[in-house]
């Protein structure tokens, strides 16, 4: 018990929590943008894998880290475009298309990686993002180490949460996005094109998902391997529900999951005699529990997963 408390009050744990949460934050924001417009994007797992590969490869080929992230975003948007074409104008099943995109994007990532990269005994590496201490703020005791000594993409993720929350509630484009997820007929009747809004939303959301994947290979780690996303995409899909489709709560959910994860990693080292697989399982179990407690009150976008065809009711 004392050990657990010791771990929890250690600033290094909280620094790790934010680092682990970063790809989840990007991913959950991406899923949220898609779903707020009414499109479920189960391509997330594959899009994150592709983003991880493309971001890493760009840097491996000599570009700087930010260019790597930008190229990853573009790759994600292309996958998003594909998913949007299948599900929005063609109105195909969003589940089937999304799972197809995940299989396709994951396989494509590994294929291109093997095609273009010579892999020896160990996978090749790049020089990843380094923590950047915010001048002044990082000198604050505890908080300085926990929050203000992070890699730059982590700050970007935080900023995006605030930006997205504001844009959804206070700008016309955010309102149009929400309305499209609630009732596309209403959007059309007000002179906007709901399908165009959906296509752009899915592309933007998929770009964010890829950004989350790219952070894995350019920040959290320094090389690519095909299984590295490890279900983070699916966690993001669950976190959107946990968050009731709100960016602020999505941040909270991502941090909560990351906390379970960081905590169990440290607990593994101090508790003996318990199989470590049990600890690995814990964050997922706790997530399911949190979902059960929270999700029953969630307010789902009414037109989620309903294709919109003009002139039909």
């Amino acid at each position, binding site marked *: 018990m004392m050990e657990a408390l010791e771990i929890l009050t250690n600033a290094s744990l909280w620094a790790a929590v934010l680092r682990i949460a970063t790809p989840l934050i990007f991913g959950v924001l991406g899923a949220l943008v898609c779903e707020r417009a009414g499109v479920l994007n189960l391509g997330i797992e594959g899009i994150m894998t592709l983003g991880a590969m493309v971001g890493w490869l760009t840097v491996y080929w000599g570009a700087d880290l930010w260019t790597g992230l930008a190229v990853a975003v573009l790759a994600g948007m292309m996958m998003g475009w594909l998913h949007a074409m299948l599900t929005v104008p063609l109105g195909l099943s969003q589940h089937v298309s999304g799972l197809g995109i995940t299989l396709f994007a994951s396989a494509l990532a590994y294929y291109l990686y093997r095609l273009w990269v010579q892999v020896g005994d160990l996978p090749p590496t790049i020089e990843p993002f380094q923590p950047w201490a915010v001048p002044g703020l990082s000198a604050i005791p505890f908080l300085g180490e926990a929050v203000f000594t992070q890699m730059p993409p982590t700050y970007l993720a935080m900023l995006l949460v605030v930006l997205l929350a504001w844009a959804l509630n206070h700008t*016309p484009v955010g309102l149009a996005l929400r309305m499209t997820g609630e*009732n596309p007929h209403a959007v059309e*009747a*007000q002179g906007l094109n709901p399908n165009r809004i959906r296509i752009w939303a899915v592309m933007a959301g998929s770009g964010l998902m890829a950004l989350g994947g790219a952070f894995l290979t350019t920040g959290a780690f320094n090389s690519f391997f095909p299984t590295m996303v490890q279900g983070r995409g699916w966690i993001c899909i669950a976190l959107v529900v946990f968050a009731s489709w709100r960016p602020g709560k999505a941040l909270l959910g991502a941090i909560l999951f990351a906390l379970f994860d960081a905590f169990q990693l440290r607990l593994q080292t101090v508790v003996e005699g318990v199989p470590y697989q049990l600890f690995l399982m814990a964050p997922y179990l706790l997530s399911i529990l949190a979902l059960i407690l929270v999700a029953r009150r969630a307010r789902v976008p009414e037109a989620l997963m309903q294709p919109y065809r003009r002139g039909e009711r």
Partner: protein
Amino acid sequence: MTDPLPVLELDGITKRFGALTANDDVSLSLQKGEVLALLGENGAGKTTLMNILFGHYAADAGEVRVAGKPLPAGTPRAAIAAGVGMVHQHFTLAGNLTVLENIVIGAQPLWSTSLNRDAAAARIRDLSATFGLPVDPDARVGDLSVGERQRVEILKALYRDARILILDEPTAVLARPEAEQLFRILRGMAQGGLSIIFISHKLHEVMGASDRVVVLRGGKVVAERRTAETNPAELAELMVGRAVARPKRQAHEAGPPVVVARGLSVSHGGGMALDHVDFDVREGEILGIVGVSGNGQAMLGRVLSGLARPVGGTITFQGRDIGRLTPRQAVRMGIGRIPEDRHAEGVVGDLAVWENAVLERLDEVSRWGFVRRAAAKERAAALIRRFDIRGAGPETRTRLLSGGNMQKLILGRNLAAGPRFLLANQPTRGLDEGAIAAVHSELLQARAEGAAILLISEDLDEAVGLSDRLQAIVKGRLSEPIPAEEADARKLGLMMAGVWAAPQGVSHAV
């Protein structure tokens, strides 16, 4: 003085959907400050025409001109910009968003950095006050009543500076007082310079609220009249294409009671949906239950269909207790049911007509657990012939039928079996005059053949016209029956308000 330039002209509009010509060379014009009624039966092409005007569809031929300028086809944005606003029959609102959000979307450039909520709220309040459309801008639309939602729809159009307002069946969802209020507001708007088109198939509305009437039938304009120079009978004939009169009930002797309820009570949500009701329905008799909706009619229908269980009292059918009946047993015993909501409970829209025709009697057309399709389709074809179900073959998807023909299918599959008892719950709701007359004559025919019929209706003309006796339902309680001959508007009004002779023994207690 000659007519000034019309604010709106439709010129030779033609629209086809596959083989169906929904609008055939339709032309009409609208003057400033005028209220134009577009009258027609269901399926006459009224909604299609207005959807073309608003840009939901592009016409195959013809042109829309607003104030003399052609309107680009197929874009609601252009229609809104030209000052056309549309109030859709099925509201285009997002229930989870606020009134303000529903109104302002699309009104500003998409990439503005702010919604300007305060300015928008002030403008909405201003419009509300000017036009008499009170609504709270910050309320969630899902929490509003149907009448309030309609106000939001109208405000949406006004917020975009609409000068021409189109209302598609605006009273379909409103109760009578709300509808009357709506027409008062529309009249005020017209006096303020707006031009209004409303779609309707209700003659009394058209007579009461419009300046001019355009009658559409089979996609064509068949007549145009000044409202002051026409009358309901003429309009009905123009709309249907022939003289329609609802059939008259012939007097005849009723037989012994078939369905008897004594002290029947059903609880619902903690209260009593039906509270000690008594009624008899006799052979060859129609018993009408009248009342304002929401007073227990739905539960009465559910009990008689085997969908709800009584908590007290008895209900018998030919002497047998039917309080614990399942729907399947009800069908087998010869109880026919016309459900209140034909789309939700009457038919499965995506199945073919023949499947809906035999669904509740599958065992009659099955052998060894397999459906004999040929026999089932033959049965459906017979229903289509006998009950004059138009626009349908056995293979047609039922969703594609008009409301009236769908109702004839439901009625037909019940009557073909020769039911001893028929529950007719709102049998003509939403139907046009021609279909109403057809449904009425089928019900009277069944009565003449000895069926006992319980008619639940909110339409007093219908209830009085068809029923032999009438009872009013108020808060789950039923009045004593009165013969239809004694029913006048005043007496029925009192009954529906819950004023009826108190039970014996309690009367005159001071």
